[in-house]
């Protein structure tokens, strides 16, 4: 069981928290919280098996958030002294005072149990920051060389991203949490160039980003050998594949693709701050407004979606959120009906929900926590079919694998996605790839056409590091699990025709 990095524990978080919280109390704030974070990061990029760039970063800083006479105030600093902690608390109160002129909604937070001094560490074997850089570069070079050695591959790009995130939180109610988590992502992409015809095409690995350590790249959790050996074949087949004929098709969607559709059309649409309008000028709102809770038919009866911040290796998983709330698991869609949202303490109080389900998150010490996405996952059917059995049930359709382009409107109705591979299905069998495919739908129509979900043997936790929201912009990592799925009659576009060619 990993333990919290002693170098983080050596930072003077407790005296700084005492200085900040006592200053905020003296200045009359009704609530104050203090958060000190250290985020270590490393990106390594290889281009054609040669190192293109490496960047190793470490951010340390702290923030004080107050509710002062009913108005938020937030300030952040980087000098780890008690004087600076007190000064930042004063600035948070000053920000609240300037902001009071434009505030007409008295801020109150839902009550939460106090957790006096708790610790949480994510599940991993090898801290990637303990692995020498040369070993990482050598492994990525080996993986790249395997792609480049294959016929038809002209370029190989490799990206490795790693994070070690430590958070210390203390508030005036008495909750104190100390946490650590690790996440890692590796992408290998092969490019084929047909210069004579002025054409190029790419094929990327589908290994999802995960809350695991370096063992993810070397151990048995993802079959890199098989995937790297097949990427060049798939790419060569894609280069020669026929262009799709636009129209309606049945789709069998692999979890390597569907996780992103879940993210955009369910994950964001069931964020309560969006539903209430707090993101209206930027990330957008939601068609799934609060008045529809318990009534909106989101999809077919086989659709069951759960939110959680607890699943092992999940990117949004943590013990306690950035408001000191213990994380939970809850239903968002039950038997096709909207039954839950993702919340934080302020919204839970505002909407009379009793308590928060623990979705407050700030991506760095310098940013204010906002409601961010839990791991939102589509549930498999116990004893449900395999991917092959779902494909066997399709006469004319497409099997969609891997994510690529994505876009959805500001109210989460109209979306359009592409993928890594689109396999044509005829008479229940795969007969080869298609090119130039995009699928487009309106959220509730799409989920309403969900005919079947696969069994637990088809379930995979996908995800992303780069979910954006809020102003100033914040980035969050989140996982989405899905089984293989069967949708009937989905609109397929031909992207070349869309471009007017």
């Amino acid at each position, binding site marked *: 069981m990993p333990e919290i990095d002693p170098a983080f524990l050596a930072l003077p978080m407790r005296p700084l928290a005492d200085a900040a919280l006592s200053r905020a109390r003296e200045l009359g704030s009704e609530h104050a919280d203090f958060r000190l974070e250290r985020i270590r990061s490393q990106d390594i990029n290889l281009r054609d098996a040669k190192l293109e760039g490496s960047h190793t970063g470490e951010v340390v800083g702290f923030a004080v958030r107050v509710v002062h006479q009913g108005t*938020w105030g937030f300030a*952040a600093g980087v000098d780890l002294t008690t004087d600076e902690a007190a000064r930042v608390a004063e*600035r948070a109160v000053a*920000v609240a005072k300037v902001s009071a002129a*434009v505030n007409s909604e008295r801020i109150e937070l839902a009550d939460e149990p106090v957790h006096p001094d708790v610790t949480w560490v994510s599940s991993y074997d090898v801290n990637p920051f303990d692995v020498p850089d040369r070993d990482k570069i050598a492994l990525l070079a080996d993986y790249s060389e395997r792609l480049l050695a294959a016929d038809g591959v002209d370029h190989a790009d490799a990206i490795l991203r790693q994070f070690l995130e430590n958070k210390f939180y203390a508030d005036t109610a008495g909750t104190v949490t100390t946490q650590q988590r690790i996440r890692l992502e590796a992408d290998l992409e092969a490019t084929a160039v047909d210069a004579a015809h002025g054409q190029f095409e790419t094929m990327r690995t589908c290994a999802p980003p995960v809350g695991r350590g370096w063992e993810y790249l070397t151990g048995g959790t993802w079959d890199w050998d098989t995937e790297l050996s097949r990427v060049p074949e798939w790419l060569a087949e894609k280069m020669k594949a026929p262009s799709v004929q636009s129209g309606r098709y049945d789709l069998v969607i692999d979890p390597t693709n569907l996780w992103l559709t879940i993210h955009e059309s369910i994950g964001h649409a069931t964020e309560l701050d969006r539903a209430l*309008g707090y993101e209206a000028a930027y990330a957008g709102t939601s068609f799934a407004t609060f008045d529809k809770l318990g009534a909106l038919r989101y999809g077919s009866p086989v659709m069951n979606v759960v939110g959680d911040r607890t699943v092992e290796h999940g990117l949004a998983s943590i013990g306690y959120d950035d408001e000191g709330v213990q994380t939970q698991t809850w239903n968002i869609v039950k038997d096709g009906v909207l039954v839950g949202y993702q919340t934080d303490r302020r919204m839970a109080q505002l909407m009379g929900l009793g308590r928060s389900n623990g979705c407050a998150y700030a991506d760095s010490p310098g940013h204010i926590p906002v409601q961010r996405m839990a791991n939102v996952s589509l549930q498999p059917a116990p004893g449900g079919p395999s991917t092959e059995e779902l494909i066997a049930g399709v006469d004319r359709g497409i099997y969609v694998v891997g994510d690529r382009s994505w*876009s959805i*409107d500001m109210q989460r109705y109209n979306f359009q996605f592409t993928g890594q591979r689109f396999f044509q299905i005829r008479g229940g069998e795969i007969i080869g790839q298609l090119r130039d495919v995009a699928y487009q739908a309106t959220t509730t129509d799409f989920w309403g056409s969900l005919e079947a979900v696969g069994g637990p043997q088809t379930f995979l936790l996908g995800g992303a590091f780069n979910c954006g929201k809020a102003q100033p912009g914040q980035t969050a990592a989140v996982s989405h699990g899905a089984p293989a799925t069967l949708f009937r009659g989905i609109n397929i576009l031909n992207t070349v025709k869309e*471009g007017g060619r």
Partner: protein
Amino acid sequence: MTSTPQETVERALGLSKADGCVVLATEVAETNLRWAKNTLTTNGEMRSRRVAVISLVNGATGTASAVVERSAVDADALESLVRAAEQAARDAGPAEDAMPLVEPADDHPGSAGWSEGPAGTSVEVFHTFAPELSEAFSRAAAADRLLFGFAEHIVESTFLGTSTGLRLRHDQPTGRLELNAKSPDFSRSAWAGQGTRDFADVDVLALDAALGQRLDWQRNHVELEPGRYETILPPAAVADLMTGLYWTATARDADEGRTVFSKKGGGSRIGERLTDVPITLRSDPWAPGLQCAPFLYTTRSSSDLSVFDNGAPCAAAEWISGGVLANLTTTRSWAQRTGRRPTLQVDNLLLESPDGAGGVDDMVAGTGRGLLLTTLWYIRVLDPQTLLETGLTRDGVYLVEGGEVTAAVNNFRFNESPVDMLARIGGVGRTERTIPREFTDYFTRTAMPALRVHDFNMSTVSKGV
């Protein structure tokens, strides 16, 4: 005791045992207000500091580089940072973009004012804006509309030192206001955005009044089918499309056959006419109101940037000249490998035409039947081969008939290539400062005209508002 950024740069360079070293010390001060439904939602005043050490280590087969960057480095921790960068460089192996570090020159851009402190900002930058915003909330409430939005002011002071003796600084103020007005039922929505260096030029009451007019236009609503429409793109929408084009315009990727700017048969499309309209797309660090760093600083190497180019002057550059693709961003090393001159990425973008005249209103007046957009949203590349992009119209699509706005219409999902689109430009307005609504987190300094585009592909209808 906290060191000044200049002291940090000198000390780190002094500690370096590598064959070459670049140190970037950055001080950031920022403040913001965010609001929704005529009231504040979040706010903040933040300070941060980071120090990046880029070590260069010569080996038998070339020079290696690595970047290690940390925040809030005190004097004691600086040595461990320098050593970590050196170890990372030794682990890295030869860098493909290796070049000699930039040497100081007379009048090197950025060499003035080295010893002065960081510029900074605080929440007080909103001292006149906040009361005006409060007044705007009152007027909006009285007129039955809701205001949403964000105001932000960031001042980033960068101090760059190299082992070759360069000492450069740049203070970059970046401010923006985004204002969104909606009807109480959220069925009507309008947007305005503005880039600013100091908020002195922001008139939020005027912007609110203009949005009120747009919401009034939207009281008459008609549904339109998808299709290819004559479309007027206001400057903010043009800014997003041109920013996407600019980010793709890298020489190396094009030369390798991997982008829309790759030529059939090999090489890049430099020299190819993209449109008969004499538009020029350019960057200029000294463009009035859009001033940005006149020298390059970066902590990342990729196809469009190289850490070896730190301190190199960023010259004004034309990417498209009179409708012809003229330059692609080219690092010093790629320029050397391909026998070109370097054209480094610059942090602003301007689109102009010598014939450009009039604003959106003039363009509407000259339109028989077409669509007037407000902004574009959720823009993603659909097909890199043609730079086909998809996205949504947002916060106001209007039907123009007989030179007048006659109704508001539903939103659309568009599928269009900003490169192919250039050949279908049917009119260019005067260039004015704007911000790209989608990409404004990453790129704010733009000046664009409104464009009239024939046959803009509105692929499907979006019910979203």
